C-alpha cells in the first residue's frame, strides 16, 4: 500500500535549482501492480527514492503501508536504475544476492537456496561465483533483479529494470515479475519507458507529465489477469490501451 500526497521535491545545489516533482498525488492499493511512465527527467527516479525513504520530500507526504516514510520502510525492495553501481563490487554475485537476507538474520542454508532459486529464475545460475564487474550490463541488471526477488519484499519498486536486456530475456523477465507478483501479492511500482511493457505488465498505468511533474493520466488496464506474451499483445484491447498511453505521452512531451 503506497500513498503519495501532494509530493513536491526541489533539488537545489551547485548553482542549479530544479523542481523535479511539482505536485503529485496518487495511491496504490495493497497488492496492486502499477506501472509508471513519463518523459526522461520527469522525476520518476526521484519519486521512487522518496518512496524508499532515501530522499526527504521538500513538501507533501508519502506513506508506505500506512506509515509516513522517514527512513527506508521494512519489507521494501528497490531495483535501482543504476544497476551497475548498486551491486557490491567486492562481493560475488551469489553474495550480492544473499546479503540482504543475511541482514534479516536468515539461516545460511535458507538464503543459499533462495539466492540460487532467484539466480536461476533470471537465467544466471552459471554466474553465481563471478564478481559483478565480470558480467555484461544485462547480466548485472539481472543480478539486481534477482536480489530484489530473493528478498521477498511486501513492496517492490523497480526503476527501468529491463533496460539493458535483450528482447527475449526481457519477455521472460516480464513473465517472471508477474508471476512473483501473483504468487506473493506484492505491491509493485514499476517504472518503464516501454509503453507496451507498461500495458502488458500492470493493472494500471500512471502517466506522468514533464517537469514540474504531475499525474497526466491514470489508466486502469482492464486486460485479463492471465497474460501471455503472444495472445495478450495481439489483443485488440491491448492495442487500444497502448495507443491511449502513447497519445498521452506525446501530449505531455510536447510543451517541454
Amino acid at each position: 500500500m503506497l500513498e503519495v500526497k501532494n509530493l513536491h521535491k526541489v533539488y537545489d545545489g551547485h548553482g542549479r535549482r530544479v523542481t523535479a516533482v511539482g505536485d503529485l498525488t496518487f495511491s496504490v492499493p495493497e497488492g496492486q501492480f502499477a506501472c509508471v511512465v513519463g518523459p526522461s527527467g520527469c522525476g520518476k527516479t526521484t519519486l521512487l527514492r522518496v518512496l524508499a525513504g532515501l530522499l526527504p520530500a521538500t513538501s507533501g507526504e508519502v506513506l508506505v503501508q500506512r506509515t509516513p516514510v522517514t527512513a527506508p520502510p521494512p519489507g521494501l525492495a528497490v531495483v535501482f536504475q543504476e544497476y551497475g553501481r548498486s551491486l557490491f563490487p567486492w562481493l560475488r554475485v551469489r553474495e550480492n544476492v544473499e546479503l540482504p537476507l543475511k541482514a534479516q538474520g536468515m539461516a545460511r542454508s535458507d538464503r543459499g537456496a533462495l539466492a540460487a532459486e532467484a539466480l536461476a529464475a533470471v537465467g544466471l545460475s552459471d554466474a553465481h561465483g563471478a564478481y559483478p564487474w565480470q558480467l555484461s550490463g544485462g547480466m548485472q541488471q539481472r543480478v539486481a533483479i534477482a536480489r530484489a526477488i530473493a528478498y521477498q519484499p511486501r513492496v517492490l519498486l523497480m526503476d527501468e529494470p529491463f533496460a539493458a536486456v535483450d528482447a527475449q530475456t526481457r519477455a521472460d523477465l516480464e513473465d517472471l515479475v508477474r508471476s512473483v507478483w501473483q504468487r506473493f501479492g506484492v505491491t509493485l511500482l514499476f517504472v518503464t519507458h516501454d509503453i507496451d511493457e507498461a500495458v502488458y505488465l500492470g493493472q494500471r498505468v500512471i502517466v506522468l507529465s514533464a517537469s514540474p511533474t504531475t499525474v497526466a493520466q491514470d489508466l486502469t488496464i482492464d486486460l485479463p489477469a492471465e497474460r501471455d506474451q503472444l495472445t495478450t499483445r495481439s489483443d485488440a484491447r491491448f492495442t487500444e490501451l497502448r495507443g491511449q498511453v502513447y497519445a498521452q505521452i506525446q501530449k505531455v512531451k510536447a510543451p517541454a
Partner: protein
Amino acid sequence: MRLVSRVLLLIGLPVVLLATWWFGSAGSEDFYRPSLSSIMDAFVRTWTWDMFVQQVFPSLWRLLVGYVIAVALGVALGGLIGTYRSVRSLLEPVLEFLRAFPPPVLVPAAILLSGIGDRTKILVIVFGCVWPVLLNTIEGVRGRDEVLSDTCRSYGITGTLRLRHLVLRAASPQIMTGARQALPLAIILMVISEMMAANDGLGFTVLQFQRGFQIPEMWSGVLLLGVIGIVLSLLFRLAERSLLGWYHGQRAGQREW
C-alpha cells in the same frame, strides 16, 4: 621468462644504485661518509645472530604490536568519524591538534603515562602511525558510492553487517593506502622511540654506534632498516593482493596489451 624479467625489474635499479655508491665511495676519507665496502664489512661483523636476538627481534616485536594496534584503531575510529558528521566535527580539531605533536617531545609524556618499558615505545608507534590509517579511512568512508549506500539502506542492511560489507569494504582501497603509508612510519617510530629511552633495540643500537663514533656500523644499521622495510612491504603486498583482489580486478580489467 616472465619471472626472470620480474626479478630483473625488482632488483635492477637497486643494483645500479648500489654499484654507483660502491665505486663512488671507494677509498672515502670522509669520517661520516665511509666507503660502502667498509659499511659492508661492518654489516657482516655487526649483525650476527646474537645481535638479531638481542636487538632486532625486540624491536620487530614492538613494531608489530604497535602497527597492528594502530591499524585497528585507525580503522575503527575512522569508520566512526567518517560515518557521523557530528563526530567528525567534534573530534577533528582535537585530532589535528594531537597529530602535530612531534614524537620526540611526545616521548616524555608517554614515559609519564606508561613508564619506560615496551609499553611506552608501542604507544609512540601507535600514536605516530595511526594517522595515515585514520585519515584515509575517514576519506574512504566519506567517499563511498551513494547508490551502494542507498542499496544498503533500502534493503535494511544495517549495523555490523553494513559496517563490514559496505563501510569498510568501500573504504578498503583507501584503508590499504593508509596502512601502506603507516608501515614505514612504524619503522621510523620504532627507531625514534628507541632513541629516547631504551636499553635495547635497533634504534638504540644505531644511536649507540653514532654516539660511539662507529660510523660504518651506524650506516650498516641504517641499511638494515631499509632491508626490513623492503621485506615488510613485500609481506604487505601479499596481504593486499588477497584483500583487494576485487579492486585490482575491477580497476585493471583486461586492458593491458
